[in-house]
Every structure is written in structure tokens, then in C-alpha cells.
């Protein structure tokens, strides 16, 4: 018997328990700016961005995984930011390559939309799925050495968010 059949056969259905349904989060007016700051992102205006990162690379399909390793500053578009935790939803379609937001040294994300919490976020994601998508909250970080927070473990060393009203 295959392992699959063996496993499935060993799983006896238990007493039925209903799925509790979708959770209703408390309606809290989360401050997305505060959350972005907590996760280590910077918020800039378009004008500030021009001054700080004049030479940044925009989304560009010609960039493949390895050539992205050479990119210092990459600018991409996010779909929305979640106010409760500063996470930005990104999809493969908006990136030159899946590894893009990880491998560049500094990341800039444009966001037009804000949703209050994760429940609202997954409401947004009910439409057809991308092949790959992620919530990204701030720059790469680690605290694996004595719990000291270090920014820039493997992924981007900084995250700049530009909110487009």
C-alpha cells in the first residue's frame, strides 16, 4: 500500500465539529503609519523619494533573479497595506522576479490602498490568486544573536513606503 493510502486509512473521521466561520475582528482604528514604523519601514513622499533614492531601479521584466542581486534600490508596487501590522501585500505580477523584494539591497514600495486588519486583507484576496504573493512587513531582520535586533539579515536592508492618496 502506498504511504498516501496508509496515512489516509489511519485517519479515522472524528466527531464532527463545525468550522467556526470567518472571524470578526474588533473594529479598531489602527494607525498604519505607527504600524509601519513598528515593523521598521520608513514612509516618504514622492518628492522625498526623488531626493533620497534618485538612482533607483523601477519594475523591469528584464531583471532576472541573479541580476537583481546587483540592484541597490528597487521600486515596486504593492496592492495594499494592512493598518494593524504594517504588512504590504505584494504579488508576483508586480515584481520582475519572485526574489526581487528579498535580494535587492533597499526596497521601495508604492501603496495606494489601506485595509484595517488581516481579516479585511483576506477579503481583498478573495479574487483569483496569484501564483505567488506575500505579506511583507518592514525590512529583513533577525534577533538570533542574543535577541539583539539587527536589520538586514538576508533580505532588503531597508524598506521605504510611499503612500499614494
Amino acid at each position, binding site marked *: 500500500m*502506498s*504511504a498516501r493510502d496508509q*496515512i489516509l486509512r489511519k*485517519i*479515522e*473521521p*472524528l*466527531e*464532527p*465539529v*463545525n*468550522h*467556526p466561520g*470567518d*472571524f470578526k*475582528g*474588533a473594529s*479598531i482604528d489602527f494607525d498604519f503609519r505607527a504600524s509601519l514604523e*513598528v*515593523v521598521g519601514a520608513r514612509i516618504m513622499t514622492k518628492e522625498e523619494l526623488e531626493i533620497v533614492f534618485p538612482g533607483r531601479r523601477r519594475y523591469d521584466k528584464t531583471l532576472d*533573479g541573479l541580476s537583481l*542581486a546587483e540592484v541597490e534600490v528597487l521600486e515596486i508596487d504593492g496592492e495594499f497595506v*494592512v493598518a494593524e*501590522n504594517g*504588512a504590504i501585500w505584494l504579488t508576483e505580477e508586480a515584481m520582475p*522576479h*519572485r*526574489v526581487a523584494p*528579498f*535580494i535587492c539591497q533597499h526596497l521601495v514600495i508604492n501603496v495606494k490602498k489601506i485595509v484595517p*486588519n*488581516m*481579516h479585511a*486583507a*483576506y*477579503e481583498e*484576496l*478573495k479574487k483569483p*490568486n*496569484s*501564483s*505567488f*504573493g*506575500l*505579506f*511583507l*512587513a518592514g525590512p*529583513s531582520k*533577525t*534577533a*538570533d*544573536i542574543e*535577541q*539583539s535586533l*539587527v536589520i*538586514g*539579515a*538576508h*533580505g*532588503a536592508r531597508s524598506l521605504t513606503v510611499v503612500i499614494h492618496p
Partner: protein
Amino acid sequence: MLSHSEASENFIADAERTDWHDETLWFVRAKRDKASKVLPEWEAMREHASQIKDHTLANLGEYLQAFESKAIANGIHVHWAADAAEHNAIVHGIIAAQGSKTIVKSKSMLTEECHLNDYLASKGIEVVDTDLGERIVQFRNEAPSHIVLPAIHLKKEDVGETFHQHLGTPKGNKDPQFLTEAARQHLRGHFLASEVAITGVNFAVAETGEFVVCTNEGNADMGAHLAKVHIACTGIEKIIPKRADLAVFLRLLARSATGQLITTYSSHFHKPREGQEMHIVLLDNGRTRQLADPKYKNSLKCIRCAACFNTCPVYRRSGGHSYHQPVAGPIGSILAPNIDKKANADLPFASTLCGSCSNVCPVKINIHEQLWFWRQDLMEAGLAPAGKTIGMKLMAFTLANPVIYRVGGSLLRRFSHLLNTRLNPWYKQREMPVAPKESFQEWYKKR
């Protein structure tokens, strides 16, 4: 192998380090407390998550098959493994077909459980662990001591010395920023070169056939997106029914683990990248046995946040290695005996049953109650240490007979000074209570 109590004694011998370990992890718990108290719906959300898991476990077979067919339709290769040996053979088969000799792997407690690294090493394949904490302990030939903070037992001096030996960083440099940068440069080379990447799985969604991997460093993504072949290894209990359920679990996971609002990266792998091969291995390894036992079924709800480690007063003062298992702490103590009763008979006793673990658990696993059940099962299986069974039976006999109890009690009080000996573990670092002349009952009779 040392038992938990023996290993703990060694750990505690370094009081300063024990205090540091305790305080550092307590700080993580304090961050968790703060993060959870910001949300008025916290306790309701724990209950909700627990119910989703109850529902999933009650229909696990169906959800696994639903996940499988969706994942296959998405272009993901789905493998099933009954035990660790099958799991390792499957993973090795995929790597061998690619012809790789060095691969990268992000954090996966399941691969620790299967001892995958050792197995692959025996086949001539080097696994580079890419989580910083895991890379540190891998260099040191140690096991992770915590499932979220693998190197929490080490001080920065230890890491500095390890990196000096393995990465050539200057001797004496113990700056976390500097050492992390050294690891970044070192591991970037591996990410760019590796053709196969292994990751763990935090959640696998039956509705969509996608799986979610959460990291703070971005190492799982760096590996998976650059490799030609991505192998994700998961236990069958990581299935959840719907995508919307992720909202509840992602809100709970990071807040419970570290007090963060969310992990930096929560990646949803739905289909392979163009030209990429994506595999998922579904492992049983005793999980179906656990599922079939109503006493222990709930342990399969675990989302590996390690909040129970951080709150456990015993874990904080004994270190992860004292549990001699890939998953330490309270949750490890109820998972390990399912795999091997005899080898892990000490673990359910490495607790005061204070109950704090069950209180922090984001999916409301009754951890301290399961510890109690395991104690019964292990003693019933005849795994008591020498002398314990006789001692317990004698005690039970005495306490069942008031007359013998009274005589025994008065003898105990009269000769209690004889217990002031090094052979009495109580007396080693504590005085015995001063025996009164009269017991309460003796006093009461005369009243």
C-alpha cells in the same frame, strides 16, 4: 543521554548564564503579553483558532485530499511519507535527480525531527541551514535549543568565536550587527549557487492548494525563489481549511512568538515559478496515532510559535538541550513520548504543571493536562525510575488507611531530623520543615 533533570543541573551550574537565559526569554514573553493585550478580541481569537483546528482535525483526511488535488492542479508535486525514513528518502530522491551536492534549507522543525541533515550528509549532500540561528548551531554541531530562537542558549561571545573559526571573522569581535553581516555575505553565496532549496511550511491551505512560509530574515524566500527545485516539508497537521483562516493564524502566530505584529515575510506559494519544480512532502511519523487518541489529539493543533517555551519557568531555567529532542519545552514534552515513550519518559515530568503554557497557547492546547495524562500512561507502561513504583504504592497504601497514616505521620515527625542528609534531594539546598510536637488531628482531639 542525560535525563532532563541531570542536564538541567548542569545548565544551572552556570548561574549567571541561567539568569541571562531566563530573563531574555521572559522579556520575549513580556513582549507577547503586550502584543496580545492590544487586541480586545485576543481570547476570542484563540478560541476561534482552536475551533478551526478542531474542525480540521475532525476532517483531516478530506482536507489532505482536497489540498493534494488543488496542489497538483497548481503544478506542485505532492509526496506522502509514513515516517522519517520515507520522508528522507523522498527528499534525497529529488535532490539526487537534480545532481546537487550542496543545498540550502530554511528552518523546519520537521526536518530536525527526521534528522534529515545527517541522512543527506551520509549520502554525500551538504545541507546549509540558512536561518541565522540555525547556521550558528550547525557550525557548532549542536541542535537548536528553541524552535523560534535556535541559538538562544548562546551568548554573542560564543557566536563571535564560532564565526571566527568558520567564517574567519576577527577573533574577539562579538558585535551582533557585524556578525549578522558576515553571515549575510556568507549565505548569499549559497543562495545564489544553490539549485535546490528546502523550506518548512507554516500553513497549507486545502481550499487553494497553496502553502505559507513565515520568516523574519527572508531566508526561506531567498532560497526557494533562486533555486530550480523547491522542496517544502510539512507535517499533515499543518493543513487549514480556507485561505481566510490565515488571517486568524497570522494574527496569532507572530504576536505569540515574539510579540511582533506579524512576521516580516509571510509568503504564499501557490504555483511554481515559471520553469521551477516545486514539491511538497506530507509527513505522518506518528501524527495519525496521536490523532486517534482523544487525550493527545489537541497537540496536533500546534502552530510552533514557542510561546509555551518562553513562558515555561522550567524551560527558561534548563535550556532547550535538556529536553534532548528537536522540539523542547512544554509542547515538546507532550509530542516526544508519542514518538518514543521510553526515551522521553522523563519529559512530562519536567514541569510543575503550573499551567502557564496552556494560557499562552494561541490555539488553546491543554498542554499541562496532556503532561498529566502522559505521566499516567508512562507509569502504566512500566517506565518509572527504579524504586518509584514501590514508593508510590507504599504511599498510596498509607494514605488509604487512617490508622497507618497516623502512626506513619507521628514516626515521620519524630524522626524527621534523620532526613537532614545529603541523600535527601530536598535537603540539598533547602531545610526540612520543623516538625511540630503534635499533628493538627492530635491537637484537635484534645480541644
